[in-house]
């Protein structure tokens, strides 16, 4: 019986990289209680821990927003850049040239990527930068207190904002049309799936876009937030001085979803999301199929989750540039400054 016991002592709590889960954590979160983003941070920690990734081998990036704050809350030992609103892609693109052996993990929001950041979002897809690009998608601007983002569904009603008259930006369709090489969708309330998709994404060479629906428990709560109290409606505030937040629990599926399964999830705001897992036979290497499924999902208002598309044949941006082995940021003057003799050659070229 002794053979089946786990290894004795401290090693039981470390992974193959010799690190404990703590080595993957960040500062305590300052996001709202119950925010979907926190649950995603936890899965990032878990996935990297389980994949035995060394935190120093990763760079983390974000834009601006509640979602974009979250890299503070994981991977303390990882270099990170909390950049500008909508501009994570360009920062990450440049930074990853610094050391092409490192993997990027980027966290953005729907406002950050689909509104102000649409251009950069689309262009980083085209370039196939080697990073996991997570959109923590809640349909609102959390940090600026609940305006519609470009992924808000048509007809959504929000306090002070009225009704959204526009069709939502579909992050996955956008990624696919821009020839992203890995496209998946998940739901923060389904941590198991989030983690598994994260692992696949981390293993992918190239851009891996994860559209993770991540409820904003504070600002997507207008309609029925107080529905158990008759006077709830009375409490609405005309002069926007108040930002009252009822403490909420995270929305979590009680049971993992089977392939092909359809399930309804009640949100804090009283609305319902229809989750649908991809079918068993679904072939994620077929871009055309992926488009079909997404079009169908959009028409039926389903939230289809799972790995929608993967293409492992396309070179990453840094490999297109055919860089030297040594990380560029370890090169020295000897590598970078042409020899003294080169100056005469150059002057000769000048007439």
């Amino acid at each position: 019986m002794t053979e089946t016991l786990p290894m004795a002592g401290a090693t039981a709590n470390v992974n193959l990289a010799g690190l404990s889960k703590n080595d993957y954590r960040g500062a305590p979160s300052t996001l709202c209680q119950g925010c979907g983003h926190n649950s995603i941070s936890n899965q990032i920690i878990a996935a990297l821990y389980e994949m035995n990734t060394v935190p120093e081998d990763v760079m983390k990036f974000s834009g601006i927003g509640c979602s974009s704050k979250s890299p503070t809350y994981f991977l303390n030992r990882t270099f990170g850049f909390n950049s500008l609103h909508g501009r994570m892609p360009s920062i990450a693109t440049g930074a990853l040239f610094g050391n092409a052996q490192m993997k990027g993990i980027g966290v953005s929001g729907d406002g950050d990527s689909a509104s102000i950041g649409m251009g950069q979002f689309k262009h980083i897809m085209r370039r196939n930068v080697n990073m996991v690009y997570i959109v923590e998608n809640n349909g609102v601007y959390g940090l600026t207190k609940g305006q519609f983002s470009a992924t808000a569904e048509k007809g959504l009603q929000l306090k002070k904002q009225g009704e959204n008259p526009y069709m939502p930006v579909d992050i996955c369709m956008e990624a696919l049309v821009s020839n992203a090489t890995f496209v998946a969708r998940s739901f923060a309330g389904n941590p198991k799936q989030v983690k598994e998709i994260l692992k696949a994404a981390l293993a992918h060479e190239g851009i891996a876009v994860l559209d993770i629906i991540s409820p904003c428990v504070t600002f997507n709560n207008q309609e029925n937030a107080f529905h158990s109290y008759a006077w709830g409606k009375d409490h609405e505030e005309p002069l926007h001085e108040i930002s009252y937040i009822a403490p909420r629990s995270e929305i979590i599926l009680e049971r993992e979803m089977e392939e092909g399964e359809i399930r309804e999830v009640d949100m804090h705001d009283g609305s319902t999301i229809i989750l649908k897992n991809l079918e068993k036979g679904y072939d994620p290497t077929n871009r055309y199929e992926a488009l079909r499924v997404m079009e169908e999902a959009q028409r039926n208002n389903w939230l289809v989750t799972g790995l929608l598309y993967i293409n492992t044949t396309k070179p990453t941006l840094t490999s297109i540039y055919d860089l030297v082995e040594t990380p560029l940021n370890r090169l020295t003057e000897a590598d970078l400054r042409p020899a003294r003799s080169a100056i005469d050659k150059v002057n000769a070229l000048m007439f």
Partner: protein
Amino acid sequence: MNKIVNDFSITVGTKNGSGSSTANNTILRSIFKMGIPVSGKNLFPSNIQGLPTWYTIRVNKDGFIARQDTNDIVIAINPDSFGRDLASVTPGGAFFYSDDIKQPITRVDVSIYPMPIKSIVKNDPNVPNDFRDLVGNMVYVGVLAQMIGMDMDTILAALTFHFKGKQKPIDMNFNALKAGADWAKTNLEKKDPFYLEPMNKTDGLIMADGNTAAAIGSIFGGVQFAGWYPITPATSLAEGLNDFLPVLRKREDGKHTYAVVQAEDELAALGMAIGAGWAGLRAMTSTSGPGLSLMTEFAGLGYYAEVPVVIWDVQRIGPSTGLPTRTSQGDLSFTYFIGHGDSHSIILLPGDVGECFDFGWQSFDIAERVQTPVFVLSDLDMGMNQWMSKPFQYPEVPMDRGKILYEKDLEEIKGNWGRYLDKDGDGIPYRTLPGNKHPMSAYFTRGTGHDEYAKYTEDSGAYIRNMERLKVKYYKAAKYMPKPVFHPVKGATVGILAYGSTENAILEAQYQLGNEHGIKADFMRVRAIPFTEEVTNFLEKYDQIFIVEMNRDGQMHQILLTEYPQFAGKMKSVAHHDGLPASATWVREGILAKHKAEGGKPKAATKKKTAAKPKSSATAKKKK
């Protein structure tokens, strides 16, 4: 009629996209190779084909090669600008034109030379139909060569260089040129006074444009990442990187030590460069006005998060899209104050093509040493025109990577560091680079408030400490700046302060003011902001200092006022904004006007030229 030797200007009026640049460059290069100081300025429209375009060449034995306002010799090939071109010849000048243009010749005070370009080309069986216009341009070069005495050997050398030794185009073009020369020899009688005679004043000099020089300088500075977006007149800087990096940084294994990425726009171009600079690469971008405006938010991030990056702004004129193909020094005050909130920009101000090269590599040293964006403000005239220059000089100092902590450094200090701690009292903190394996190396960069350890904070005290340190850093960084260039004259009573591509015009004006108007002026060309103590001393010294620049609002004057209120009373702005490369005329007239307004009494213009002339900058430099 007195001969005028090596002291005149030539302007060629053609159509954009008609391929005349080979011809014009051949004139320029041939004169240069004859040892005569020369400059060429391309005045082209923002269009690809069909609109009037001019190329103007200044030949001056004394080395005064700023653009000349007057046209001594005009060559008119474009019917659309024929009238204007004819009118622009100085009385006593020469006017060559393509004789298929049937327009009235209204001048009697100039020498008129019709040229049968079309028929000469048509008669050459070696010229394919499609190439007649192109090669036709060589005919006017030949006619001109014959008439002013350009040397055929230097012409051939110029063409050989231009076509990289490829015999077919060399022959075809040289034949057309010779046909033109031969025709002129037989058919034209010299009536104008302009002649070239060989000299040796360009020995050892090269000819190059500033954008190419900047690209090559950046390569000698070890550039590793460039993000860019096309825009006139900056495009050729990035394209220069693409041209010369593969040559100058070629490796045995065929692998690359750099990446040049054409971004989707200027926001992304600077964003990528900042990402790369943050990750420890020598990173840059290059743009012009509109692109710079788009980079504003990222520039502020670079300043506040303290990321080294080099930003070239090859200035064109105008707010908004303006005149994309005209030159200016109009982005100075915007760059200085770029970004919301309190901020300061380090600005380098190259004055010629050689300095474009020098600042190409020095800017990286400064950016990494000071950990901040460094703006290099060139302009269209310097960036896109061919200038005589001393040869590029190999950097005489090793690269300065600034304060970087690697694994071993962190081990030594036991991981005990703070990204924004001012350990050395110079305001410059230490940084680490991604990929550093020391578990204490990482930090989280942000454009939000942060403390000495790069942690997020909204604390007022931390905010003020950080911002005051940034200010200390900025002013202390003056010691890393290139010093101003000083052009004194004997007995100077006033000062001229300027920067950038106006140097040639100012040297000439300085000479004219001294010798024809009795105003002896020392001239200082500032090469960087923050200002070094030489600038302070210079401003201290004179009762009047004329701040000369190519913009409307006197932007350097504005900045000097904010930095040197104590000298406010004696600094006079001389600003001009016609979009053309600076000429001595406006500098001189501008200074005379301000001088007069201040009650100065210039002597009546003296015609007698003094023996001891100051050397022009390019020729002077050669001797150094």
